[in-house]
């Protein structure tokens, strides 16, 4: 039976991607939010290219963080409401791997589109083109971290009455290290300093989140179906 584990994870991923395609408007929602929120900054701060270029790393990172939050409460909430979570648990897959599969699905449907939308937003805010690669590497690590921590938080608040309100309060503090290192790497690249250490710390953060977050999320899922 253990040989089936990868097949089942792939089956959950396939199912979630198919659902995301069928509900295209929900899926595009977070990317559109990302672009719109980013586009509000020049309007609010005034059209000074120097100021915008200086603030661009922070703007892109904060907007990505908030946009990735949007679909989180439906990630497990929809499964709990219609009884699918029970059926997922009954496949014999350990809850932590169910959680991991759902986190991967969240990244593919939210993190990846954000990654694709980030360079246009960066260019719009006047980021130098040679720092775009740092933006992409940083956001690749950052969105993975967001999916892992977000998925963990979503499973922990699952079944709580005000889960949707609790979720950002839980996710945002936990993801601040990613925000700090990600934006700092970009800042360093723009000012000609070494950006390596910041990205390495981001990678270390991801390396710790990969085993820990699915474990915690699995416990959350078990508690939610009780």
């Amino acid at each position, binding site marked *: 039976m253990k040989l089936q584990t990868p097949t089942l994870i792939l089956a959950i991923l396939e199912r979630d991607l*198919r659902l995301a395609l069928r509900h295209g408007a929900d899926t595009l929602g977070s990317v559109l939010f990302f672009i719109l929120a980013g586009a509000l900054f020049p309007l609010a701060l005034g059209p000074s290219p120097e100021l915008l270029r200086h603030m661009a790393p922070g703007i892109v990172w904060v907007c990505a963080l908030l946009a990735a939050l949007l679909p989180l409460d439906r990630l497990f909430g929809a499964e709990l409401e219609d009884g699918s979570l029970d059926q997922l648990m009954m496949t014999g897959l350990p809850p932590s791997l169910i959680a991991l599969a759902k986190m991967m699905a969240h990244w593919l449907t939210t993190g990846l589109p954000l990654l694709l939308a980030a360079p246009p937003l960066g260019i719009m805010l006047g980021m130098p083109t040679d720092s775009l690669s740092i933006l992409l590497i940083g956001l690749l690590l950052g969105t993975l971290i967001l999916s892992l921590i977000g998925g963990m938080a979503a499973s922990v608040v699952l079944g709580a009455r005000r889960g949707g309100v609790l979720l950002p309060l839980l996710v945002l503090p936990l993801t601040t290290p990613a925000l700090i290192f990600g934006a700092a790497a970009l800042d360093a690249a723009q000012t000609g300093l070494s950006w390596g250490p910041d990205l390495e710390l981001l990678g270390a953060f991801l390396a710790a989140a990969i085993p820990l977050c699915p474990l915690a999320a699995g416990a959350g899922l078990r508690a939610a179906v009780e």
Partner: protein
Amino acid sequence: MENISVFRGERLVLDQVGFALDAGDALLLTGPNGAGKSTLLRVLAGLRKPEGGHVLWSGVDALADRSRHAERVAYLGHQDALKPGLTLLENLTLAARASGADPYSCMSALNISGLADLPARMLSAGQKRRAALARVLLARAPLWLLDEPSLGLDSNTMGLLETLFRAHRDAGGIVIATTHVPLPLPDAKSLALPGLNESDIPQAMEDFPEDDLF
């Protein structure tokens, strides 16, 4: 094959409930609303841990490894767990991958193979119930836990259900079902859950250890 499952003593909802079943047996759980029939099924499925007592499978504690226990169990909850945006076949794909069974044969056993490519949101309540029952078949598990399987089914489907139950029990499978209406399960044992009288509730709350109230 000897299958014994015993469960005893979840406080408050289920108080010291116990029974044993052999291969081929069926058990009907009856009782008033709120008596804990569904709760008992969820405990037997391993979705919920009992506060006290054990579920034994062939003499071994079944809930020690709940992921392994899940492979022995096909669970039908009171919800059909179908995604409205996916077709019937896509809804069953995950269960089919988990067991390696053929979804088409299970769908035709419940007479819904003609609906395979329809999105689940277009199905009627009875058709959705049949789809959920097809998923029970797909699991190819020896223990069927069915929470009101007859909900919304027409008389033809009840006939199909009778055939499926018989085949499953002849192959040594066990059926445990909650119900308010007669189900086609000949020689089924029956367990009536009394439910709590209103006067019992305050006392039962006092019995409940404070740590468990969270």
